[in-house]
């Protein structure tokens, strides 16, 4: 990558920074006033009082949709900047030759901040295991990267508050660490396709130092790429959520997805694994279910299995992994999610 970069003059850089700050300040002002705006919009502007169910659904939508989109915007931008400091090459260097345990913890953490797309799962897997990253450590990374997802984190924070978001982050990391460690202890290298270890992996590109302008651009690209892709799902999810919020009776979900129904957790995982939706579409629905009496553990288990274990990713990984290893991988992660579900239903 080219090291020769054109640097804008100081005045221009200062103006850009000022613009960025002004943008953030405006964002904050609008964000703080969304709830009041939603109330005003629904009650005063549309002056609807006749159908209270429609009102509560509408208020939900008018408040949640801009709130979630705004949060998404800022967080994806921030994550884009953070990720410009991490590349898979750097992550691989940090993980190569690590012992179990320490390696698993580090890999799970790096999985959150290293840019990852399930379409590059195969080159990433080969790049890791052929350069001395242990199999279990590689799995910790491969589990945490999709499961601990910034869009999911934003939605959970926006719709449920910071406690649930932190729970999701913590348990997602724990599952990635423990599942990867378990796979490492089982010594399943024989179930990796033979040609993988024979692959000659070249030395990756050496990234030149990026300027701050480059990093801001990386953030902007991330917003264009991710928010540009997920916003229809977010809106659809919030619309369904709004419908449930307004029209499904209180405690309707308690009997099916409540704490009392022990079978609901495995059922949630079983339904969730083959489902492939992005976090953006599923969480607003889940939030509405929670409001109607579904238990948090059950809901969290459902969500994690939808996001963290996806059928397309397993099909992609089939190129490098034999079926027993894919089954073990899915099984260990599903088990972890199951335990998390029960744990929260018992504790909370």
């Amino acid at each position, binding site marked *: 990558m080219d090291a020769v970069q054109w640097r804008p003059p100081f005045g221009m850089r200062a103006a850009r920074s000022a613009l960025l700050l002004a943008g953030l300040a405006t964002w904050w002002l609008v964000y703080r006033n969304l709830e009041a705006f939603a109330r005003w919009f629904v009650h005063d502007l549309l002056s609807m009082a006749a159908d209270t169910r429609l009102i509560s659904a509408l208020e939900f939508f008018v408040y949640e949709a801009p709130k979630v989109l705004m949060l998404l915007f800022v967080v994806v931008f921030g994550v884009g900047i953070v990720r410009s400091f991490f590349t898979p090459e750097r992550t691989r260097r940090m993980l190569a030759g690590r012992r179990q345990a320490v390696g698993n913890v580090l890999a799970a953490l790096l999985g959150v901040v290293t840019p990852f797309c399930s*379409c590059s799962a195969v*080159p990433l897997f080969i790049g890791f295991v052929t350069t001395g990253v242990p199999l279990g450590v590689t799995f910790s990374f491969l589990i945490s990267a999709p499961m601990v997802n910034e869009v999911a984190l934003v939605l959970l924070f926006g719709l449920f508050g910071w406690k649930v978001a932190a729970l999701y982050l913590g348990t997602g990391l724990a599952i990635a660490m423990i599942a990867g460690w378990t796979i490492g202890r089982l010594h399943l290298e024989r179930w990796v396709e033979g040609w993988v270890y024979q692959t000659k992996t070249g030395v990756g590109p050496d990234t030149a130092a990026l300027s701050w302008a480059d990093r801001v651009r990386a953030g902007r690209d991330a917003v264009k790429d991710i928010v540009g892709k997920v916003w229809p799902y977010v809106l659809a999810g919030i619309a369904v959520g709004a419908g449930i919020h307004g029209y499904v009776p209180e405690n309707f979900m308690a009997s099916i997805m409540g704490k009392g129904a022990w079978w609901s957790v495995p059922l949630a995982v079983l339904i969730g694994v083959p489902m492939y939706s992005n976090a953006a579409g599923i969480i607003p629905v889940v939030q509405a279910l929670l409001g109607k009496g579904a238990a948090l553990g059950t809901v969290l288990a459902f969500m994690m299995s939808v996001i963290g274990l996806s059928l397309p990713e397993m099909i992609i990984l089939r190129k490098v992994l034999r079926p027993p290893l894919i089954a073990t991988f899915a099984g260990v992660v599903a088990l972890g999610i199951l335990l998390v579900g029960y744990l929260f239903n018992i504790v909370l």
Partner: protein
Amino acid sequence: MNVKILGSGCARCKQLYAEAQKALAQSGVEASLEKVEKIDEIMKFGVMMTPALVIDAEVKCSGRIPPAAEIVSWLTTAAAKAG
């Protein structure tokens, strides 16, 4: 000069290919453009994020789709270097 697009045929790889085509036309640099889709060929470049763009065996970017203008600047510097 030789330009390669590494990637196993995903949508983003095709996007990068199109962008590289555009850049080649804009820059007027003489170069061949080829797709590399075989995983072991891709791994030789040590690339872990696809799509990637390679000019004369040097990886210019991976995991992102640079705008045509950026590719043009790589092409012209590479052409100048080749002299």
